[in-house]
């Protein structure tokens, strides 16, 4: 690639990044605004943060969002991985059925899934609230986990697990020592997708939770009709938390792999 092209592509990338980040930075700046306006910056203050922390509905929504996202991620990653491994060994017919059924919540618009669940919960007289939200989130996260684990399993050499078992490993050991580590990148990306989907979800949560329980999305949706700069403060805090979490997620594995390689090299030396 010549220099001109390189500079051109860097500028293009810069514009895209600016487009993706400008509104977020705008929100963060205006969360420190003295006045109520979302367009004129009149002075620096922490006023909206104080208002946010003393607002019970906001704190509750934040709590529900985080709890549901964490629980839904853990459960759907576990179930999704287990199902994907089972599927990779299953007969074609079962594989096809599960893959087709999984396509439904992915291919269907969220609103269709949402009204389906709304009707299901009212059909079995399950009261709308925290649990319906959690169940719904687990339901739409699992297919994404399966989808991101399956490609890793497909490229996995099927003889590996068999070799492990021939060498005396129990099926459980073959699973946890061979198959799961080999699919780890897929499992991690599945978990990340699940967390994002759950944390960001609005449509399904909006339909399956009743009054009283709400997450951040529902809160912002209902509050957006009037001007409320506390939402800016809330989003600033979310941005900060998520940036820190993402940095940790990206730093910890590289540290762990360094440690692992150290341990392995020590082991190798011992064998010698």
């Amino acid at each position, binding site marked *: 690639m010549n220099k001109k092209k390189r500079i051109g592509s860097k500028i293009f990338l810069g514009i895209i*990044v600016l487009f993706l980040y400008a*509104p977020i930075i705008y929100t963060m700046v205006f969360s420190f605004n003295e006045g109520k306006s979302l*367009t004129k910056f009149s002075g620096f203050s922490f006023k909206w943060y104080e208002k946010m922390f003393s607002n019970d509905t906001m704190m509750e929504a934040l709590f529900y969002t985080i709890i549901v996202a964490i629980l839904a991620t853990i459960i759907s990653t576990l179930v999704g991985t287990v199902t994907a491994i089972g599927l990779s060994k299953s007969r074609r017919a079962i594989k096809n059925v599960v893959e087709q059924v999984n396509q439904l919540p992915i291919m269907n618009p969220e609103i269709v899934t949402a*009204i389906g669940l709304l009707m*299901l919960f009212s059909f079995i007289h399950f009261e709308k609230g925290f649990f319906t939200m959690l169940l719904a989130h687990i*339901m739409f996260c699992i297919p994404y986990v399966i989808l991101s684990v399956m490609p890793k399993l497909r490229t996995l050499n099927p003889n590996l697990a068999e070799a492990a078992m021939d060498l005396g490993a129990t099926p459980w050991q073959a699973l946890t020592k061979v198959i799961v580590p080999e699919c780890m990148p897929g499992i991690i990306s599945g978990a990340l997708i699940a967390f994002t989907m759950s944390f960001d979800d*609005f449509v399904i949560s909006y339909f399956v939770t009743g009054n009283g329980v709400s997450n951040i999305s529902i809160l912002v949706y209902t509050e957006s009709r009037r001007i409320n700069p506390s939402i800016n403060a809330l*989003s600033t805090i979310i941005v900060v938390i998520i940036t820190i979490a993402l940095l940790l997620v990206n730093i910890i594995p590289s540290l762990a792999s360094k440690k692992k390689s150290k341990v392995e090299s020590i082991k190798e030396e011992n064998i010698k």
Partner: protein
Amino acid sequence: MKQFRKMVYPYLVWSTIMIAVPMLLILLYAFTTQGNTVTKFLFTFKNFKRFLTDTTFLNVLYTSLRIAVETTLICIILGYPTAYVIAKFSEKAKLRWVLVITLPTWINMLVRTYAWTGILQDDGVINSFLSIFKIGPIPLIYTDFAVILGMVYNFLPFMIIQIYTSLTKMDYSLKEAANDLGAGPAKTFLKITLPLSMPGVISGITLVFLPAVSSFCIPRMLGGGSYVMVGTIIESQFLTAGDWNFGSAISLIMAIIIMISMYITKKVDKGEKVEGASV
């Protein structure tokens, strides 16, 4: 390896209750009407007829499809070059850029959409900037432009990541082979890179077109209260009007239209592949 097969069973039960049954309920409601006390449901096509014979509803359907197609096209036009540039970076830089692109998607979609309401106002940042040059104020918020902008803003990262993934999975020796055999950069791109990255574009389209056509929070927030799309009609049928039968019928019509367009997209992709192989 048969012992691992049992691991599917719990999910079979779960997906039947949580995925299959709700879909059946939508079907049931769409084809019925609230009956009397003896039979709860009466079979009918009335709900479909009501939607398909009313021009206001058909116009809404047309608007939704147009907005979604425009959003998807813009996402491909912006997303493909972005993914292409990132895929050419070194391994370390790639991961860093993927993080930069995906980070905004971790921030709540409604929060990000809400941010645009301040920017697009008549006295917002863009119009204040334009007023320096004595232009405007240009109406930005509560227009088609605002709705499409909001959708592109929210869904673009999905497109970029899908295309990026398929580009990095690509076997680079194929490109080298094409170069060795005398193909120029343009020809190599058209004959090798583009066809091999098509699966990424296709899954990108699914991730953009789908939420775009059915979205109801973005049109509500950036299009204003009177901006109607299919999603907003379904919402009002279920949460305010309380006509679940009619709402189910509209959802079914929308789901079928989406399934058909996805099917066509996949067919087009496959057709191209066959053609490419024969050349």
